[in-house]
């Protein structure tokens, strides 16, 4: 009896309140998205809003079960959960059902569930367990390899299922690494590489090369290198470039045009590296290394784009970057989605009054594009409120994570925030054309049981750990 009252008094009710609010708003929007004059009973279980009511009921049940469970099982069985989910992912890969070209669903009776959704929870639990060991420090190569493996191995299997959206979600765990000691410049470098990848798709490789070279030069000079040394290096680079250029012109060497830039730059970088090692200049060494990685990345971008991404994703990225326009193909979805949201205006058209989102102008409107209904019917005000609620929830969860005494709980909390943040930002971002369409659901809003349950479990496990944070010591 005492335990129960302690649970109730220690429970973070703010989070619970926001959670319930978001789930209910989500359901109202699914109802609006599917709504038509012909079906009007909210308990019509042949319709999506009817089914979603069942999923919500189960979700609440799951939340209660978690709250009354023993908090120690999450840490104690973290590895077991992890191994089980890896097996489930492999099983899906072999026996799964193909939906929209990805093999990520497994049929259990009349239910279809998506193990990738639950892999997120198992992965952050296992990651928290590994990184939460009291002698673990994120400072050696080995520690990065171990933690990196735990965090990204499931993503690899999910990628093999051809579900790129869900796989990318795991990339957000870099935030957890940052919180636990990943140097800030590495995080910045990671962001820089992502940007470089995008720039390379838009601009020509040669332009990127020249820009990088100038950038490295400026950094080098500003940080304190000698202008003279830089000029000498530039001389070498230009010299090799000129030789290659005239060589290709006069002796008709078959050198692709890009390589006339790339080869001298590589020669220059190697020369700088050698000099850096010889003179023990760390700045030269790091800026050269930085350049080397950047050049490598922008060179491999085209390869990755052509060979790793499938046609769907190529199209989406091309369309987003304005390289290719296909208003009937993928561009249609985003165009329609933007029109729906844009037509909502400041105040929105009113609940159930949307014309674009209803009547199937927007595809996948109750799943990945549910935010269109919010934007159209509730306007900017409504959209702002939804985003504000997500912001409050995320910041609240961060605060909860920070107040944990056990490293395990803190890392787990950061994992929850990372994943939820990625889902919210990417999902809403894609409906308004900020990021390419990668099919991931909006937490608590999108139609479907797997996503709702997995986010419910994620949040309530954290709340359980939090309510237990004093008990764990005693």
């Amino acid at each position, binding site marked *: 009896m005492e335990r129960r009252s302690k649970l109730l008094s220690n429970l973070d009710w703010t989070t619970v309140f926001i959670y319930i609010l978001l789930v209910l708003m989500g359901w109202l929007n699914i109802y609006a998205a599917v709504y038509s004059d012909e079906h009007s009973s909210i308990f019509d279980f042949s319709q999506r809003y009817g089914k979603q009511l069942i999923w919500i009921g189960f979700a609440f049940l799951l939340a209660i079960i978690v709250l009354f469970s023993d908090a120690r099982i999450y840490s104690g069985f973290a590895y077991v959960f992890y191994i089980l989910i890896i097996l489930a992912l492999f099983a899906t890969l072999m026996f799964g059902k193909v939906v929209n070209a990805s093999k990520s669903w497994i049929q259990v009776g009349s239910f279809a569930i998506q193990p990738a959704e639950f892999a997120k929870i198992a992965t952050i639990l296992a990651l928290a367990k590994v990184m939460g060991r009291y002698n673990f420090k994120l400072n050696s190569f080995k520690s990065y390899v171990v933690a990196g493996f735990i965090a990204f191995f499931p993503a690899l299997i999910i990628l093999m299922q051809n579900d790129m959206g869900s796989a990318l979600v795991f990339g957000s765990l870099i935030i957890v690494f940052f919180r636990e000691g990943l140097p800030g410049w590495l995080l910045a470098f990671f962001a820089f590489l992502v940007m470089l990848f995008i720039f390379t798709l838009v601009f020509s490789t040669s332009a990127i090369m020249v820009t990088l070279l100038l950038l490295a030069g400026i950094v080098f000079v500003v940080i304190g290198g000698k202008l003279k040394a830089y000029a000498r290096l530039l001389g070498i680079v230009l010299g090799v470039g000129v030789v290659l250029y005239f060589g290709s012109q006069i002796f008709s060497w078959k050198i692709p045009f890009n390589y006339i830039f790339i080869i001298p730059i590589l020669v220059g970088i190697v020369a700088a590296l050698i000099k850096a090692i010889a003179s023990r200049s760390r700045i030269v060494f790091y800026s050269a290394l930085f350049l080397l990685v950047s050049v490598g990345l922008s060179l491999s971008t085209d390869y990755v784009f052509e060979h790793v991404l499938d046609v769907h994703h190529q199209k989406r990225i091309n369309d987003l970057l304005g390289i290719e326009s296909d*208003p009937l193909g993928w561009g249609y979805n985003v165009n329609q989605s933007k029109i729906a949201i844009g037509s909502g205006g400041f105040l929105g058209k009113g609940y159930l009054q949307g014309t674009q989102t209803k009547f*199937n102008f927007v595809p996948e409107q109750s799943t990945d594009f549910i935010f269109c209904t919010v934007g159209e019917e509730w306007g900017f005000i409504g959209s702002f409120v939804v985003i504000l609620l997500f912001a409050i929830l995320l*910041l609240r969860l961060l605060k909860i994570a*920070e107040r944990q005494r056990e490293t395990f709980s803190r890392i787990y909390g950061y994992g929850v925030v990372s994943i939820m943040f990625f889902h919210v930002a990417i999902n809403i971002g894609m409906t308004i054309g900020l990021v390419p369409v990668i099919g991931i659901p909006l937490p608590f809003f999108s139609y479907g049981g797997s996503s709702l349950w997995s986010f419910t479990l994620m949040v309530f496990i954290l709340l359980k750990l939090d309510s237990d944070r004093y008990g764990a010591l005693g």
Partner: protein
Amino acid sequence: MSLKLQTDRHFVVSGIVVLVLLTIVIKLFYIQVIDSRYKFSAQNNVLRYVTQYPVRGLIYDRNGKLLVSNKVVYDLLVVKRLVKSFDTTEFANLLDISTDQVREAFTSLKKQRGYSSRKAMVLLKQLPVDVCNRFREQLFRYPGFELQPRTVRKYERHIAAHMLGYVGEVDENTINNNSYYQLGDYIGISGLEKTYEKELRGKKGVNIYMVDVHNRIKGPYENGKFDSVAVEGKNLETTIDADLQEYGEKLMVNKIGSIVAIDPKTGEVLAMVTSPSYDPSLLVGRERAQNFMQLQTDSLKPIFNRSIMALYPPGSTFKVVNALIGLQEGIVHPYTQYSCAGGYTVGRGVGCHIHRSPINLTEAIEMSCNTYFCHVFRNIIDNPEYGSVEEGLNVWRKHVESFGYGHKLGIDLPNELGGIVPSTSFYDKYFRKGGWSSLTIISLAIGQGELSATPLQMANLVSTIANRGYYLTPHIVKSIGDSLSIDEKFSQMHRTTIDSVWYNYVIEGMDMAVNCEPGGGGTARIAALPNIRICGKTGTSQNPHGKDHSVFFAFAPKDDPKIAISVYVENAGFGATWAAPIASLMIEKYLTDSISRPYLENYILQANLLNRRGKTK
């Protein structure tokens, strides 16, 4: 990690979260409040995407005769919400369909993917022009309905169904894997329509209109800034001679089999007849599905493209290949003689017909002597130079494959088969390792046994002989649109492993088989033409399911080959009886554009060789 650093990181992460969400809010504010592009909807307008379907490319024959063009049909679209109640019977009569069909169309309307009562959905597909003209006059009485023009195929000549292929609606799988296609689009499903789909289809366009609640078009959205224009499909010029194709199909009526004719110098396919065939216009329009079902269930398999998919043993025609391999490997000489007294008697034995004896290589081809080629084949396989039977078979196989056997030739049609040239591992499995010898596989000597090839490969083989040692990959398309170049692979020369000199002896034999004196023993004298020197070889391809298939291949004229042809007639018996006259008529038709032997033509036209399956010889 110091406590301060930890607090810092907490704030950095919070900062990132806030910053990113703020960016989203700003963008939302921009499109919802500032950008006026989306405000049209305030007046309850909606956008309508109207696809502009391009016209599919035309298909011509080698002489510029039109084979495939397009005709206009209409899809009847409906915006369900705007429909007022109407008299079903009158409506059905107007459209020339039954009231049941109308009801059925309305029930299945709602089951369509992405159904919406506010969107224009397809109610009835491919209505003919005259019906639509009548309906259009009454359209004002039926609010919510409209007609959308589409083009479907029209066949100017009712020939070459298998080769041309047909066009149909895309299936779900294609839509999921190729973002160009959308529900209701047409796509080439077989034949040239499939191979050259990308060139023929052109590119769809789209017009975006603003439409008010009453479905009235208010004008183009954003002045057509987002519209795109449809691009017409490219025309194909094929290598087919439409008249020859038509004649071939006429000759093959009431027979099962195939004719393939190739221009040996270029690899251009002149005619490709598969029988039984069907009228390609059966697979167009509203009756397509029903007709397709009927063709599919027909026991004679009219949809099956025998020319590139049927695998037959080449029979005696294959003796020429064994002769060439023997000559190249030096185990037989043009003047080597063997005697034949009714058959090859070693082992199980292979029978032969009565002819003079002993004979040399050229005569053996002329008279198609089984005994002679059993000797040749065994000498190839058992040649002591190779050291083992296995090695012997490998050498033989390598030669055979250089004639385009045992693999797809790579013609520009889908679903081509490659045939079989048995390998050592095949026989090791079939018998056991070391459990077979040249005698066990002796039927390969006369083109029987585990060997099989398509009629196209047979035509390509005789084309190779006509060229004295090389072939160009057979193909059907000569040019696409305005460009004169086609795939490079069609102009590459494939040389056989046999030296060019040896071909003359074989060709001599094929010449004599057709053109020897009466009583000289030639097996294909029925094919002879007075003014054109045809070189040919008969064959009889054994068939476990009934009477043998009649086979003949030939090229002409001897000194300047312009046509190489293979003919298969299933269950028809000796090659000379049916296949040879058909080939001869085809050659005459192509080279002289006339027929000098009406009696021979009649004999073929009147023959009904169906229903011969299952009967023993």
